């Protein structure tokens, strides 16, 4: 393998795993924008979302086996539904002291993790890809079909979300509610309902990420902790609350991790990626794209 294809191979791996982080970071961002809430249970929602989709694909519910695409949609819808319920629980926390928010969301994350262990057991399973497992070779670079699916569907979801927020009426309402809750409320926007929808979308995106990544990773109740942390890092790196920032942050973090594994030291990838993140934030405290100021007292 020559150096160019080696670099490209590493880059592809980084973009793949980075898309996953980006989708998770979007969930953090959406919820932070609208509710001013950093949701530390988001990694657990990602894990639950993965299960809620994959259990159908693997025929774990009454032996009922559905195609991957159908399981993908069911998983997103169920997790979005769960998001609606969680929003109701989180609502009183939204404008409270940071300490209480932290405690509440971390606690809820534990509850979800333990629920998963009770319902599906502590032992995980490998998921078979619906696509061929043999990679497509382009110029010495191996492209795994499932990885391409993850990257392309993530891209579609991210673009779709941007269009939705910019163009759709309810999307605009969500942005308005995020900017100024009181004024939006006075203008007749049902703020609580838009927040619920935001939460549902964030949860749905996490489920999409998990179901897409499931055939590449190993599914178990602990899978959310590492991805949740890296998604959070991507959310901060991109600029807390910014939608393009979450995407940029996720991709950057994934690529940083892959490059440090391939070219610097594989033992300390996490450390290196986080160090670079801290350095970036020292020079650009608002993150790569910039911060959306959430001003709620």
């Amino acid at each position, binding site marked *: *393998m020559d150096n160019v294809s*080696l670099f490209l*191979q*590493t880059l*592809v*791996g*980084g973009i*793949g*795993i980075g898309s996953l982080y980006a989708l998770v970071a979007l969930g953090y961002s959406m919820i932070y924008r609208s509710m001013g809430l950093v949701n530390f249970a988001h990694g657990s929602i990602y894990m639950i979302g993965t299960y809620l989709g994959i259990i159908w694909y693997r025929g774990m519910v009454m032996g009922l086996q559905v195609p991957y695409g159908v399981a993908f949609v069911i998983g997103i819808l169920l997790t979005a539904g769960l998001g609606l319920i969680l929003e109701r*629980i989180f609502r*009183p*926390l939204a404008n*409270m002291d940071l300490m*209480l928010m932290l*405690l*509440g969301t*971390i*606690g*809820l994350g*534990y*509850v979800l*993790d*333990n629920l998963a*262990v*009770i319902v599906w057991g*502590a*032992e*995980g*399973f*490998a998921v*078979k890809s619906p696509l061929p*497992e*043999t*990679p497509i*070779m382009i110029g010495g670079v*191996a492209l*795994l079909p499932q990885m391409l699916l993850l990257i392309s569907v993530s891209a579609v979801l991210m673009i779709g979300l941007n269009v939705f927020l910019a163009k759709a009426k309810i999307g605009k309402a969500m942005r308005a509610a995020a900017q100024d809750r009181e004024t939006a409320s006075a203008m007749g926007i049902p703020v609580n309902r838009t927040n619920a929808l935001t939460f549902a979308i964030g949860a749905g995106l996490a489920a999409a990420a998990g179901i897409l*990544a499931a055939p*590449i*990773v*190993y599914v*178990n*109740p*602990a899978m959310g*902790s*590492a991805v949740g942390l890296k998604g959070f890092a991507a959310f901060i790196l991109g600029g807390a609350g910014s939608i393009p920032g979450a995407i940029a942050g996720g991709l950057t973090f994934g690529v940083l*991790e*892959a*490059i*440090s*594994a*391939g*070219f610097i*030291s*594989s*033992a300390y*990838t*996490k450390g290196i990626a986080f160090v670079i993140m801290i350095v970036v934030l020292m020079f650009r405290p608002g993150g790569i794209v910039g911060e959306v100021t959430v001003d709620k007292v």
Partner: protein
Amino acid sequence: MKRSLVSILLLLGMLLAACAPAAAPTAAPQAAASTEPIKIAIIGAMSGTNAVLGDWMKKGVTLAVEEKNKAGGICGRPIEIVIYDDEADPTKSVNLAQKVATEDKVVAAWATTNSTSALADIPIFAQYKIVQLTNGTNVDITNKGSAYIFRANPAGPAYETPLVDFLVDTKGYKKFALVTDTSAYGKGEADYQTAALKAHGLEPLTRQSYGIDDKDFTGQLTAILQTNPEVILFGGSEVASGLIAKQARQLGFKGQLAGGSAIATPKFNENAGADNSEGVFATAPYLTNDLNDQTRAFAARYKARWNEDPEVHGANTYDGTQLLMMAMEKACPNITGEAIAAEFHKISGYQGLQGTFNVQPKGETIDKTQLGVWKGGKLTPYTQ
């Protein structure tokens, strides 16, 4: 405002509830009150990526204990098991070791499924004079000078040295790349592989590492493929090694894959997929349930109890528990950690599932492994 407060209390309640299951012991059924049960503990990874190790340990130990209790227990006393989850975290493990020593007052403990935590727990069990069993493979475990530690399976070099010897002497390979995780287990296995290679005058081309929760190994594998190895040796655990085997094949690696006991488990095969595990060499003290009458009978009983086939961890925890119960019977009626440990050291010539056990002064019990090869999703003994 009032509603908000209620919600916070509710959440705090949930938080406490979430912590509770990890701390609550799962007690075996209690026997008649006249015969006080002998308490032993299992501390291991019951959740997290390594949860499968805890699950296997629980099943192997529980089966051995249930059989003994059915046959009348130890000096008429039943054995009771308390189980704790340390999440493969040495800090949590040490706290739990303290807890079983001071609150549960156990005489023996399986601690733990992971070398890192097992090493951390050694001083606690030595201090409280409690017999400690582990199926971790790191050599340091029996080099800490504790008279209470016993290893129920061969130590790391017993897997890696014969494997490397075979790959170099019989197969004629010279170019090796190592990939392992950053745990004590992973670092240890890769160290023993390196030492075994050195004995043949060879150096690994590269040694790549990853964190135990990593899932994408493109970076490590591209670095490995660049060195153009004939063999990739796995040092890490079953799930990650399986994923690495799959990703290595997907990146076009055509050479030999091989590794120690983690590679001999069904979890490795599940994560690699049968196509990618084909032809992979693994060493383990327990390759197949079909080895002899004893292993076949064990596999049948295990399957009847747990509705799944046993593998090496189920077998070594069963073996270790048999050794422990033998020592308890000899120590009877003096069931203390000190007396049991003294009797444990005297065991020799016990024929277990993994072979013949002869307990050594430092706490090793067995040192032989066999070579196996994956064929059609099944691990079979390799005949040279």
